[in-house]
């Protein structure tokens, strides 16, 4: 597919009134902002599914008025007193909170999907690149325990660059921690559905996102463990265009189904009929 390699031949030139236009991150096409939003950020030129905020995602998937947030108070913790070239992590985290109106890179809660009650967690890439901080991991685990207790299907929508370096090893351990939560659901036969959205990489792809009973991805989603650049440097060769796309992973057996954004909610409720069949 080569989502990020398409030529710009379809790109509308639009020097005037840039505030009217959205630019597709994949094919660089210029789309009227209104059309872009109406199309829930799916590019009409290349069908790429751009990132959504957690609010947009919940609106897309959860019955109106049914969402109730869990553990909203959980925030990043600066376990390492981490300071890098740009300053302290604590400041960076606070800036992310201010910018996004979220306390962490994930929102968890309960809600209904076409009247089926679920526990849902939605990552938001705007919050420190959707990175897996200890707060993120903790919320994922607590939501899993909630799903376990109330015997509700658990759905995680991933969107993440991977572990959060600023929390060092504590971030890495969230991979084990979240998977331990999923393991508990498996033992108790509670459904767990993973939805991988653009991008789902690094430590998130290598933990809860990849072990769904059913792994669903949006078209064009980038999914992978190692970064493209790192791999090219390692193997000293160019990678195929469709490398690490959802389509590539489907072909290689790791994704159950690629589902279009506007069909996702109904697809989920269809699937949930089977997970709760008796």
């Amino acid at each position, binding site marked *: 597919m080569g989502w990020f390699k398409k030529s710009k031949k379809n790109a509308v030139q639009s020097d005037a009134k840039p505030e009217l236009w959205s630019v597709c991150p994949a094919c660089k096409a210029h789309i009227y902002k209104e059309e872009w939003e109406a199309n829930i950020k799916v590019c009409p030129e290349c069908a790429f599914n751009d990132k959504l905020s957690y609010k947009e995602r919940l609106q897309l998937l959860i019955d109106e008025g049914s969402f109730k947030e869990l553990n909203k108070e959980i925030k990043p913790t600066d376990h390492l007193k981490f300071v890098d070239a740009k300053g302290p992590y604590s400041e960076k985290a606070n800036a992310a909170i201010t910018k996004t109106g979220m306390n962490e890179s994930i929102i968890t809660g309960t809600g209904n999907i076409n009247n089926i009650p679920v526990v849902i967690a939605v990552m938001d890439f705007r919050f420190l690149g959707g990175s897996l901080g200890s707060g993120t991991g903790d919320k994922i685990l607590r939501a899993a325990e909630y799903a376990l207790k109330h015997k509700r299907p658990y759905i995680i929508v991933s969107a993440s660059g991977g572990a959060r370096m600023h929390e060092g090893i504590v971030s890495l351990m969230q991979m*084990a*921690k979240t998977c331990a939560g999923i393991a508990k659901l498996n033992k108790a036969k509670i459904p767990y559905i993973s939805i991988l959205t653009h991008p789902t990489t690094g430590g998130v792809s290598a933990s809860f996102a990849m072990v769904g009973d059913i792994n669903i991805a949006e078209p064009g989603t980038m999914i992978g463990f190692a970064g493209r650049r790192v791999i090219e440097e390692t193997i000293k060769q160019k990678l195929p265009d469709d490398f690490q796309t959802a389509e590539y992973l489907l072909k290689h057996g790791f994704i159950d189904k690629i589902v279009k954004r506007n069909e996702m909610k109904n697809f989920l409720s269809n699937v949930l009929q089977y997970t709760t069949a008796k």
Partner: protein
Amino acid sequence: MALNFEQPLSDLTKRIDELTKLNEDPKVNFNSEIAALKKEAQTMRGNLYSKLSAWDTVQVARHPDRPLIRNYIKDMFSDFIELHGDRCFGDDHGIIGGFATLGGKRLMLIGHQKGNSLESNIASNFGMASPEGYRKALRLMKLAEKYNLPVVCLIDTPGAYPGMEAEARGQAEAIAKNLTEMATLEVPIIVVVTGEGGSGGALGIGVGDAVLMLANSVYSVISPEGCASILWRDGKKAPEAAEALKITADSLLELGIVDKIIPEPTGGAHYDHSATMKEVKKAILKQLEKFNKISTRKLIEKRFNKYAEIGKFRKG
């Protein structure tokens, strides 16, 4: 091979060697000078190793003479029967495993395999495992579960192999599956970080009831070089990144990630394999004894709680 920070010690050792050679001439006698220098060297070694920076420790953890899994197998375990293959695609050499005996105690040994020569490093892909390695590891853990054998994992890897084929065959899936399955494996899992604990590639066989670290090993979410080039935009800032990431055994003990630090001899594990292994052996056996007494249900519950506690949010 002398590490950077060992330079003064290396110079001193060289002088001792020279003097020892001169001393072969029966006409001279440098015995007392040599003895004095040796004492000085011993003190210097102690001093150097007592105040290693995080970046120094990274160098020690990566030292090519540091004991590798093949050394442990040969010298610390009294028996080893290697078992091959993931029953699906291949037999990785970045992770090896099999039945092993330690101090009379039978167990399943799994660990990263680094090399110490170009040839052995190429054969084992520099200790960077492919999906087949993680899947072999899981198969052996499941076998250990069937036979009620405890699992011992030795961690020493720069990370999982970042290759095209590895991605195509599911590096992410293989690690994720191991994390999930290890959480509820019904036998004790003792993890020892013996050298480099490189990110998800380490954790993929690193979920355990007890996680031990050799004093000069490191364990990190990303290599200091990688972190520096991203957050400092300059790979040369690796020493700063190493410090900031808190990747040494002391820091990790403090953070509650590591349960015990296994002491290394003065001069580092590479300076005295046999002393190192004595300590590693003692530490593993102690943990095996501890977890052997716990019921399976309790074992898995404790393991779960251990990970649930890591980074648990607390107000304020």
